[in-house]
């Protein structure tokens, strides 16, 4: 255990100051009237993907890359109620084949994070989230599409224990994501082994659960995490066919997150790797961000 903690510590960049940047899944809050804006760049690539349960590569895709830049402000409404917003610009490409990359503004997301209770290092949090597509991108040209055009609402519970002295914490969360039906450009499509003679597509709801172990100090944070996400139902990628928004996309992802914010300005980084999945790419992803903290 001691070595593990050491590993966590070593994996963070040491600095002094106040660690403040927060995410919709952590137990960190901006104090009333303070705002932290994160400007982030992310890149996710895969060469193998799961065609239903068959793991395969595709020489007509090669390496698939999704990149994004994103602004993500977190605002302290009160010391225990925060608002977080994000709006990414996303673009996709492949290293082989002839599928045209897609690009554009994706979805505006917002979360309300509320600390329900806090006692003896233990805390419980509720997060309500929602998202709206901003760009008029094509949702069913997968895997090139930059999003699914769903309107979503999510509910999340977070349980967190932080050892007061060391800053060592254990965090678990569960989320349920409601996703609206979408419209596609075509007026017939195949899903669930049949043809739907309409342009309306039912996108399955989804859920996720995560476990995080890390250290949070005033000026820095380091954490290892694992997440499992899945749709509640859905069909699968047919043999040698393309994905579709009705697919039951599932992934188990492990990764590391770290942050250093000595003063008003800080940086964060996140890496993730999909270890198992269905109807998704086995992606390796990273995000780096610059954080800027100010008070209103």
């Amino acid at each position, binding site marked *: 255990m001691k070595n593990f903690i050491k590993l966590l510590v070593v994996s963070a960049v040491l600095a002094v100051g106040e660690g403040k940047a927060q995410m919709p899944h952590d137990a960190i809050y901006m104090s009333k009237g303070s705002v932290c804006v994160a400007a982030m760049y992310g890149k996710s690539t895969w060469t193998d993907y799961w065609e239903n349960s068959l793991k395969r590569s595709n020489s007509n895709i090669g390496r698939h890359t999704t990149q994004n830049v994103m602004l993500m402000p977190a605002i302290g409404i009160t010391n225990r109620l925060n608002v977080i917003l994000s709006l990414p610009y996303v673009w996709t490409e492949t290293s082989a084949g002839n*599928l045209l990359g897609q690009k554009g503004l994706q979805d505006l997301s917002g979360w309300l994070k*509320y600390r329900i209770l806090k006692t003896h290092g233990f805390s419980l949090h509720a997060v309500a989230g929602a998202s709206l597509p901003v760009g008029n991108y094509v949702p069913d040209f997968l895997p090139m599409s930059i999003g699914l055009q769903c309107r979503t609402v999510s*509910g999340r519970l977070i349980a967190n224990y932080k050892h007061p002295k060391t800053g060592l914490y254990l965090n678990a969360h569960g989320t349920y994501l409601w996703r609206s039906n979408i419209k596609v450009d*075509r007026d017939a499509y195949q899903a669930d082994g049949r043809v739907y003679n309409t342009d309306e597509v039912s996108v399955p709801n989804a859920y996720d659960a995560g476990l995080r172990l890390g250290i949070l100090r005033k000026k820095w944070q380091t954490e290892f995490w694992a997440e499992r996400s899945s749709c509640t139902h859905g069909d699968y990628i047919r043999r040698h*066919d393309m994905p579709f928004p009705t697919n039951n996309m599932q992934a188990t992802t492990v990764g590391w997150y770290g942050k250093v914010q000595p003063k008003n300005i800080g940086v964060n980084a996140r890496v993730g790797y999909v270890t198992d999945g269905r109807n998704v790419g086995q992606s390796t992803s990273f995000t780096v961000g610059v954080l800027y903290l100010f008070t209103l």
Partner: protein
Amino acid sequence: MKIYINRLKGAIGVFATVAVLTSCDKTIEEPQRVGYAPASVDEKAGSWKTYQLTSATEIAVAAPKAVSSPEYVAELASLKQKSASLTKEQQEAVVYWGAGAVYRWNEIARELAARYNIPPAYNAEGKYPVPDAANPLADPKFPFANPPYASRALAYLSVAQYDALVAAWNYKYQFKRAAPSKTDATIRVALPVSSIPTYPSEDAVVAAASVTILKAMFPGEVPYLEARMKEHRESRLWAGMNVESDLVAGVDLGNVVAAKVMGRARTDGMAAANNQTLTAGMIEKAKERGLREAWVSQELPLRPPMLPNYGAVLPWNYTKADLEKLRAVPPPALDSPAFQKDLEELQTIQKNQTREQARIANYWADGAGSYTPPGHWHRTAANVSHEARHSEVRMARTLALLGTAEMDAAITCWDSKYYYYYPRPQQFKVKTSVGLPNFPSYTSGHSTFSGAAATVLGYLFPDQAETFTKQAQEASVSRIYGLIHYRFDCEAGLKAGNEVGNYAIARAKADGSGL
């Protein structure tokens, strides 16, 4: 602690509100089709010209028992009992099949086409196994229902339905057995009853003919097709529309007619359509005619081109001699300004494809996993025929004229494609927003299918001719917007399609229907 519980309650309240706000109905609303009494009973349809039957009387149908016979009285009593009270499932089956026999079996065929429309995956040796009709559910599934395959399956389906219905109409008006509910008014009917005689049953004729064709075209779906047919047949009893002997006579007639139609299918040249040994000679000849750079597959590993000898399949409405007349004029040379101009158009769109261009490209894409462009036009034809409240035999005529024209369109288009062996824009670094078909560029298949369909449907539904023409033009340019065809591919395809459609119209004018 109490305060925490209150907060927890508050949080749960928020979640509950959120859940209520978003637990809106996610069921998909599809346009529903319901049955109707036809606008015209087409009582002379027994004299319409058939495709494969020499005449409407070629297949004999025994005279039915008189309505006063004990056998028929017993049948009525049985029908009365079967239709008296229905379960929810039976009611749903009645409504579903009541929309129309030709309508539903065309829809089923399109769905099968979509389910089988996936190109084989390459194997570990980098080869693409050829689908095997003897082992249809193995990987890759048989068939690969690509556009030429789908056009052919739908053509034979529609021809079999039409020939069987013309024969059925002949016997209906020869024997003039009225609907069961007209003989016994106490029979509960669940669908509109017309004056069309019910022996043999048009539903049974269509179901049997359709299943015979579709079993041959989709041999992995035999149990599925038999289950659908059983339900269709029973729905006629549940609906109080046909007695058992109406159905038996219809099934027998439909089976025999469809078997005759399948006789043509077995010898129409489809078996040699995927003859890959011919391509080297095709390329050589195209080069002799001045082609600088031949089409090559843009997939890795290189995929053999789709059905290179489909142009040699037997057409319906024109002769083999006409095929040469229908062949497109030579495309622009690859170093000509005309080629450069149309390539530059694609390069410009690739840089800044508008959302409207993407929408049009996606709407008409009908690519892998779809019922293909011929399926798209069958759907349109079935819907307009349904909206016009056509009788079964008239809807079958519409779909046979359209279906044969679509297969003819595939034949002339594939003839031009492998005659010219012209490279795709992707050989000049153009990408695609709809997926790239694996065969030569010139001429555009979508344009040919759509030109033929719009011409035929415009003749059959003159008040909607302008709409069909606009749709065909949009389908044609959609392939430019999707970046997989030069404009000259599309223009030549549309022109050939119109000419193919005119051959079907010539047949329609001479089929004795007077329509």
